């Protein structure tokens, strides 16, 4: 069974979102998602300063097996990206909820967080897959 931390929120498209408490939200992909994709070989990230809207495909996780779009879980501006992934994409596999984070968004409306799934609901959604 894959690890699904209870303090995070999730999109049905397998992104996780952490509320940093200052209006910014860190985004990565779930352990389940990295397991499905297999060994990561490239991660294409958005640029800092990009304006993104919920549901936009703004990053690509490319593994040995497939390329997978990563969607913005909230509307806002990209304020940071994890540049370490350029040289070490496997961090997404090894530490998906920690050093394998992808980007951080300053949300237009923090209330959008409520539209995302909690850990239990996300777990139920992947059990159906």
């Amino acid at each position, binding site marked *: 069974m894959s690890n699904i931390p209870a303090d995070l929120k999730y999109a049905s498209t397998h992104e996780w979102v952490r509320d940093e408490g200052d209006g910014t939200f860190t985004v990565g992909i779930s352990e389940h998602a990295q397991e499905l994709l297999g060994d990561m070989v490239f991660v*294409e990230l958005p640029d800092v300063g990009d304006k993104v809207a919920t549901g936009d495909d703004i990053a690509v996780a490319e593994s040995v097996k497939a390329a997978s779009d990563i969607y913005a879980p909230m509307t806002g501006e990209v304020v940071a990206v994890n540049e370490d992934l350029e040289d070490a994409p496997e961090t997404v596999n090894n530490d998906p909820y920690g050093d394998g984070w992808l980007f951080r968004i300053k949300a237009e409306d923090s209330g959008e967080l409520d539209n995302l799934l909690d850990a239990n609901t996300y777990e139920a959604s992947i059990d159906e897959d």
Partner: protein
Amino acid sequence: MGSKTPLYDAHLRAEAKMVDFHGWDMPLNYGSQIEEHKAVREHCGVFDVSHMTIVDVEGAEAQNFLRYLLANDVAKLKTPGKAQYTSMLNENGGVIDDLIVYFFSETAYRLVVNSATRDKDLGWIEKVAADFDVSVKERDDMAMVAVQGPEAAEKMQQVLSAEQFAEIDGMKPFLGKNVDDYFIATTGYTGEKGYEIVVPAGQIETLWNQLLEAGVAPCGLGARDTLRLEAGMNLYGQDMDEEITPLEANMGWSVAFDPAERDFMGRKALEQKKAEGHDKLVGLVMKDKGVLRHGQKVLVEGGEGIITSGSFSPTLGFSVAMARVPASVGDTAEVELRKKNVTVQVVKPGFVRNGQSVL
């Protein structure tokens, strides 16, 4: 549930991620495909290839039968145990399967064919064999592992007795030898030194465990695919199939047109194809970010083609592919990636040999 090899439980114990592979439950990886790939390039890995089909052909007309059934010429094989890469073609010259044939004598040969094509292969072999004095026997009592990598010989030395290892010590590539109950051949699908070992099904788990205890890394289908692609080796069903002749699949070298009087299945169609001209299989190299994948369109001088196999190359650190393109292809090609067109280098298929880049 799919078919299981005798190593199924051993795979689960090694925490394999199992997948369906043409009706077989096979290990995709045991954690990381890239780590397994590197283990084979730098040290030694072992693959369960028991799903492959072993067929023994024996009888007074065995040689004549195989000279007709197969595109390469088994009459070239003179040394007992010598192996040959070859293919079975249909009347149109399309590839029914690629395979390795081992020569024991002019009345005894062994074929190792793909698992995905088992039923049609056996059906075809039986059909063609009907006109010859031969017996065709599937050896489903046997299992098989591939031990591959620069340290393969020293690992085999650890699991065989001194007498057994002496039998295969220094054996040249593409030879096989019966060593007690094992049939050990210096063949493989990785571009590294190594062995393919056919073992009675009841003994395979012991050998597997001995290899793992000797520090050999268990490797799954994922690594097997990236290793064979780096080595420029075809995958049946992807790089060629019944609609494709060997000439269009970089397998022309394995078709023996000489001697001219030897008739073999598909010969006429191939001769016609040769005279008319045909597409060819090339290698592609992309140093930009991104991964070339099966099915992507390729624009070349004089037309367009398609990527038959593509992946990230763990050894090289960038993407490589095989593509079927018009023969007019130049030194570069354009590939339509997800959101952009990228210029890639055109090379001969084959990117890595014995751990080193050949680009």
